[in-house]
């Protein structure tokens, strides 16, 4: 069974203090690794898809990277509006397209 583990569970940052979130995975046949942002009371919002080791993607202050065993979400010079829960999910090489999620990292950025 696919396993996705995210760390840390919670992260408190000062505005401007860069940090990284980790997502380690154990799957058979990775089809894609996804990062989502979830704000309280809302559904997950898509951030990135990574398909192969070595791939990197960026969006504003966020950068996602992928190796064969884990993915990192780097937050550079965060602002209070980056406060959210960040979810990692994997999609494996089956035909059903389901996502297997980690438990998430809740990031709080203080001004």
């Amino acid at each position, binding site marked *: 069974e696919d396993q996705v583990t995210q760390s840390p569970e919670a992260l408190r940052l000062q505005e401007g203090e860069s940090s990284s979130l980790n997502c380690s995975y154990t799957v058979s046949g990775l089809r894609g690794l996804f990062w989502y942002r*979830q704000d309280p009371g809302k559904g*997950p919002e898509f951030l990135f*898809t990574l398909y192969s080791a070595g791939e990197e993607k960026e969006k504003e202050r966020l950068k996602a990277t992928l190796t064969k065993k884990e993915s990192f979400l780097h937050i550079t010079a965060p602002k209070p509006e980056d406060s959210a829960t960040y979810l990692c999910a994997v*999609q494996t090489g089956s035909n059903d397209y*389901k996502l297997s999620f980690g438990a998430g990292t809740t990031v709080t950025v203080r001004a």
Partner: protein
Amino acid sequence: DTAVSQTPKYLVTQMGNDKSIKCEQNLGHDTMYWYKQDSKKFLKIMFSYNNKELIINETVPNRFSPKSPDKAHLNLHINSLELGDSAVYFCASTPSTGVGYTFGSGTRLTVV
């Protein structure tokens, strides 16, 4: 607005009752899903339909029955509600490629 919309947003009900949650997407996607998010925020797949055909049926009690009248709608009916059914239920959709999930805003179900 193009979106995945769920109703109701909040649902409070007593144990033993039967309730339904509705989901509609106007994105033209072929595949729709129900996910359950428990109190620890862990999201887990429940069901998936592709063009009205059931594709995924994870280990979910048979008190939960999805229904897809057409490819734009996927409803979830729950019989004999239990305290442990309290959670946030998310509907989602993707095109037939399986890439580009769009989630609804969730239905918070509280069973008392």
